[in-house]
């Protein structure tokens, strides 16, 4: 068994390498002089020369890549131009709010989406199913920043119930932490919820057509048990897979949500970096998030071992 796990972990290495390669190539494949693109319209030739030197752009590509990867492996993501600090330090400073927001979103989503999906699947074709699926299409379609503004407008400005913007860390107490995060978490979770609910419904509905469900019913056990212990348990693998893939959506949503609610997290940092055309910072954050995504999906893959005894790596 350990052999198999080891092999699975090892197979993520090529993925990470290719991710690094892609991010690396993005800058180098820009038409024209990459340094000029970075400096923008107001740069001087001195700026361009400086960037050339600091990024080593005159060296042959493979050499650049090796040097750059070497830095990566040492945990060095480069230095931000405008904030004049190592990217890693910036990320470490801003990670807490993003982590809190993501965690809260995940909890809300999973607590709601899976049960809703199971209920919709069990009432397949009925009015409840149709209504839930209609809601999920809407959840998919309304952009999160629009939802954010509507929520702010309705709840915070008019009803004055919750703080509009900003973030309070856990050390200030659970109350403020929660009240500041609840609106952003709801905003962020809507898309994720819609996705997971849909996939749960589809997976459970398909599991319900399998032969072993017929056997289970023929045994005379309760319908609830058939739904959960037989159908949902077998649908677990595709559902967990989509939860993993949906993290990509979550990360994109974090950027927008933090902007709308002025939460000083990694999303906000990304936007600041983009507006300032601070390329090392953008690159560093992109790499960081990509690695997190790969890691989470690796955990998802490993969870298959628990969920389905037929899967052996």
């Amino acid at each position: 068994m350990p052999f198999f796990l080891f092999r699975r972990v090892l197979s993520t290495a090529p993925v990470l390498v290719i991710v690094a390669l892609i991010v690396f190539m993005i800058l180098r494949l820009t038409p024209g002089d990459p340094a000029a693109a970075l400096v923008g319209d107001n740069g001087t030739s001195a700026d361009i020369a400086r960037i050339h030197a600091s990024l080593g752009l005159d060296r042959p590509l493979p050499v650049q890549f090796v040097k750059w990867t070497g830095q990566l492996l040492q945990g060095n993501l480069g230095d931000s131009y405008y904030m004049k600090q190592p990217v890693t330090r910036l990320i470490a400073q801003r990670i807490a709010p993003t982590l809190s927001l993501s965690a809260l979103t995940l909890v809300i989503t999973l607590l709601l989406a899976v049960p809703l999906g199971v209920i919709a699947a069990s009432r397949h074709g009925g009015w409840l199913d149709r209504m839930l699926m209609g809601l999920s299409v809407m959840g998919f379609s309304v952009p999160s920043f629009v939802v954010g503004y509507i929520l702010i407008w309705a709840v915070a400005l008019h009803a004055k119930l919750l703080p509009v913007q900003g973030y309070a860390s856990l050390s200030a107490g659970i109350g403020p932490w929660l009240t500041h995060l609840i609106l952003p978490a709801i905003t962020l979770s809507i898309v994720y919820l819609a996705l997971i609910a849909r996939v749960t419904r589809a997976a459970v509905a398909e599991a319900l057509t399998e032969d072993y469900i017929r056997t289970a019913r023929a045994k005379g056990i309760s319908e609830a048990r058939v739904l959960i212990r037989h159908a949902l348990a077998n649908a677990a693998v595709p559902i967990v897979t989509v939860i993993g893939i949906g993290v990509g959506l979550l990360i994109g949503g974090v950027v927008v949500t933090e902007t709308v609610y002025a939460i000083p997290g990694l999303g906000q940092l990304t936007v600041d970096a983009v507006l300032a055309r601070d390329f090392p910072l953008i690159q560093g954050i992109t790499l960081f998030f990509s690695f997190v995504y790969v890691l989470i999906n690796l955990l998802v893959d490993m969870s298959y071992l628990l969920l389905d005894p037929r899967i052996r790596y």
Partner: protein
Amino acid sequence: MRDFDFQTAASSAAEPAATVLAVNNLTIALPAGADRPHAVRHVSLDVRQGEIVCLLGESGSGKSVIAQAVMGLLPASLKAVDGGIELLGEDVLTASPDRIRQLRGEKMAMVFQEPMTALNPIMRCGAQVDEMLAQHSRAGVGERRRRILEIFAHVRLPEPERIYASYPHQLSGGQRQRIVIAMALILKPSLLICDEPTTALDVTTQAEILKLIRELQTESGTAVLFITHDFGVVAEIADRVVVLRLGDMIEQGAKLQVLQQPREPYTRMLLAAVPALVPRTRPPVEKAYPLLDACGIGKTYVTGSWPARKRKVQAAIDVSLMVHPGETVGIVGESGSGKSTVARCIARLIEPSAGDIFANGRSVAKARGRALYPFRRGVQVVFQDPYRSLDPRQTVGASIVEGPLNFGVPYAQAWQRAEELMTLVRLRPDALNRYPSEFSGGQRQRISIARALACEPKVLIADEAVSALDVSVQAQILELLDDIQQRLRIGILFITHDLRVASQICDRVIVMRRGEIVEEGAIQDVFLAPRHEYTRALLAAAPGRDFAFGAA
């Protein structure tokens, strides 16, 4: 064996046993748009304590629908519109869902057709049976486990404790079916319904399961409703027989009476279509030159990647055979015997790991791509599943002309050949513009044969070509193949697991087991005087072997 059956039938007629299941004038409607208004119409039958009633019919006869109706498992689109079903005197059609759930397991139980998918793949086998016990009885955990292990031993599962802790995918089809039977019988229900429980199993496993069901039933006096399409099975275990056709009951009666003196023409037709186990006499084959010569075919699959150790699976080992003009060579074996692997190697759908294949004097074992084209002209394949061997998005005509067009035949000529071939397989040529979905299974198989013949092959490889067809349709296809062979003098390599089919059509037969040839020779010799013990076991396991079918 015949006399024994007669005596039990006579003795049970002396004291009428209690009726466990009574189906009265049952009519179940199909949803609008189906090809007929009712799934079953005015069907009445009953099953008494201690007897096995076989419900016999071809596909679409409605036999499974009756079983589902009894268990309350009918899909929502099917509704009973007339008649009633009584289980031990209680009406089950109008019973509440809770009452039905109570009855399931305690009073009635069902065994289904596909053992490979009947069990929840992510739950241990013991737990699945335990779930049912926990629902219906008040026994404690230890007591439940004891009872489960006991019944596992009773259904002849080896090492019940290990099986208790296993997952379904770790067990064979036969073992899984025993677990399903154990699960059905653990609460000692009065009625056991078996819906084609052995159709998906090998013939030797089938024989064991049939024997098991018969023994358990005799022991506890359970009433059994056994659904099947196989007359051999009926001959083997039935007390009484009910024959269904397209939802109507055609005939019913005691087994011997229905099988030996059928009243209805449909029953007579079905009985005549069952191939005899005794090989027919066939015209002699002149062994002038072989159309196909396979020497020492071997196929090894390597599984497992680093760092796990590589495992070698030898699907075929040193198989040699020859096919002459006008000769049908059969390969028979159970699942895992390697017969399909050999066929696909010879057809060059896969590449053999060892050995060589000669056709027209040329070696083709290692050839690839364009080099294989002349070979493909001469050797064509007819596949098993008629519903998936034709591209659903192409007209039937396009499928048939595809081969000749690939070989450079001009379109007009290819189309004309297609029309001739449709006539040869006894379908109207103007149907060439229809799509496969508009044809029945038997018709589609004929189209597949026409498609194969369009290339003007010298050898036809039929890979379980009739296994998915009803027995009456099967008889037609076998006759068609025979006819084609007589006229065109082609050689046929026929793969099958069904010994009766082999008897019907083969001149020579090769018996395979676990990748190796166990016995081969003229079919009369092998079937009437088998030398190898495996061949003997295969022949002994064929259900209804003592019954002379197809004669008359």
